[in-house]
């Protein structure tokens, strides 16, 4: 029994890293997101101006050497405001995804493992949730809870949760059919042990892909809701809220919406590209080719 290849044994993580390294575009996206996160964390030190400091002598100016992204209607530096707004936008996306995960993953696992009427009940409830028009549901949730960024993100999280639920249910269903789950049962493992030790480790990969893509979706939703005035409330600002307020001066100073708009577009694109790269590197590998 010595016909095992002498290649060093690789854990799942090592294999994933080896494959991910080949995804150049995803590496760029990941690099961009890391830089963006660092900029958001260190915004007070990086930003050239105080984002709230008004300068009424220089309002609605275009990009210049002093103000790279121009100034807004109160003479505030747009670059500093974009940097500070990134904290709100990123945090909002994380919040929404965490809420969606918390609402969607456990019932998805339960539905996939238990099946039968439990599954039917959970899936019909999900169908009911998905049959609401998303914007109306978001507005309704915010109307009940009051307009604030957290409430807007709860609404977005609730709206995104059915997809996580369905994804978890589908992957759990297929893993639950695997013989190794039956084998674990025959050994005498409890259902909780099987879910924790055998099902969860084998269903998280597709989840990572979805998280990355949904962070982008959540960011877009936050931007949309803040644009409508249902999300971020002044003096706090997110990219969406900046576009919403800059919208009024679109003819005089297009730079007011161009830069936060670009920030949204590039970040969402980076998240999608990262999601694609993750999907390609996390795919099930059965046997090494080399």
């Amino acid at each position, binding site marked *: *029994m010595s*016909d*095992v*290849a002498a290649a060093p*044994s*690789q*854990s*799942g993580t090592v294999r994933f890293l080896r494959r991910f390294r080949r995804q150049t575009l995803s590496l760029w996206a990941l690099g961009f997101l890391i830089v963006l996160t660092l900029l958001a964390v260190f915004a007070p030190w990086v930003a050239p101006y105080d984002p709230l400091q008004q300068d009424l002598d220089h309002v609605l100016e275009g990009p210049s050497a002093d103000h790279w992204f121009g100034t807004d209607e109160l003479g505030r530096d747009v670059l500093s405001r974009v940097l500070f707004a990134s904290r709100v936008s990123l945090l909002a996306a994380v919040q929404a995804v965490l809420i969606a995960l918390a609402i969607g993953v456990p019932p998805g696992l339960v539905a996939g493992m238990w099946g039968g009427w439990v599954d039917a009940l959970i899936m019909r409830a999900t169908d009911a949730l998905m049959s609401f028009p998303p914007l109306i549901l978001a507005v309704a949730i915010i109307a009940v809870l009051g307009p604030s960024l957290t409430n807007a993100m709860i609404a977005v999280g609730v709206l995104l949760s059915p997809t996580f639920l369905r994804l978890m249910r589908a992957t759990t269903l297929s893993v639950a059919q*695997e*013989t*190794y789950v*039956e*084998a*674990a*049962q*025959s*050994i*005498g*493992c*409890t259902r909780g*042990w099987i879910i924790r*030790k*055998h099902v969860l*480790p*084998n269903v998280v990969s597709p989840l990572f892909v979805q998280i990355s893509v949904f962070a982008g979706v959540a960011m877009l939703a936050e931007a949309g809701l803040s644009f409508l005035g249902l999300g971020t409330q002044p003096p706090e600002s997110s990219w969406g809220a900046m576009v919403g307020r800059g919208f009024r001066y679109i003819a005089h100073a297009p730079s007011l919406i161009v830069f936060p708009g670009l920030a949204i577009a590039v970040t969402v694109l980076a998240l999608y590209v990262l999601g694609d790269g993750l999907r390609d590197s996390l795919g*099930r*590998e*059965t*046997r*090494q080719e080399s």
Partner: protein
Amino acid sequence: MSDRPLLEVRDLTVQFQLGGGLFAPKRTLTAVNGVSFEVMRGETLAIVGESGSGKSTIARAVMRLLEPAAGTVHLDGDNLTALSGAALRAVRPKLQMVFQDPYSSLDPSKLIADIVAEPLVVHGRARGGDAAALDRTVQTLLEQVGLGAVHMNRYPYEFSGGQRQRIAIARAIALEPKLMVLDEAVSALDVSTQNQILNLLEDLRTRTGMAYLFISHDLGVVQHVADRVAITYLGRIVETGPAARIFGSCAHPYTQALLSAVPEPNPRRQRARRHQPLAGEIPSPLAPPSGCPFHARCPHAMDVCRREMPAHTAVDGGGSVACHLQTEGPRLAGKPLAADTPTPP
């Protein structure tokens, strides 16, 4: 050693509900129909049948991976069919299973060491969390199946089918079971690997005195390993007996057809043999035929076969057979069929 069988299965029936949607009527499929058999300590009982005969379902019902609709399974005095939850988990160490497909029976996300150690950990036999002692135990188990310490920190995808099946066997013997259920355990392997695994199983049996419930469709393999054989057809046992009697003078026409399909290594003898291919397919268990389930494909079918289910009658040389030819028809009771030319019914 006591005379009581280690495993005693009585009138086991397993049914599946099909359909049952909003508009589809519910249909009941009887996969296993009133099956009884026993396995003595240290004995190998082979359950043989073609696809759809219910042999794997029997294995899963014995393992309590499926809920039987009726019947009892006694293992070493415990009524498995009456147990559930923690009480059932407590007796699981006594019976372990090796599955057909070694590619899906090992969790791809786990190291070999963790896979083999899992039964010990789950049943609290990991000696108080002493990692080094557990490692040594796992190593001993792997050595017993012809692997070693170098394989412990590898993942299942790094192994061939035969090696994976060895790992599955190491996991199954970790709890020192009294009965091992082998569900087509060598069917997915190529012939030379099959032989290695069969030798390993024989080796383990002589060393530990385990009993095997050996599920297979391959009579050629069964001939090498079985002490006794039970032939299943459409969810019923049609013939049982000591392996020597089954392979020497079988009594059921279905067994005969199965045996004639086993290739003979000697070409001269192979050519001289009268091959009786079975016509048609195994009937659907959703619409089982009346009378004897085999009558539609039986070369000796008589009127009575279409009307009445044959009862099990004892056969010279041990075992029993459920066939009307034993009691009536053109042949006299109990006369072996193999020597005769089939006459039209």
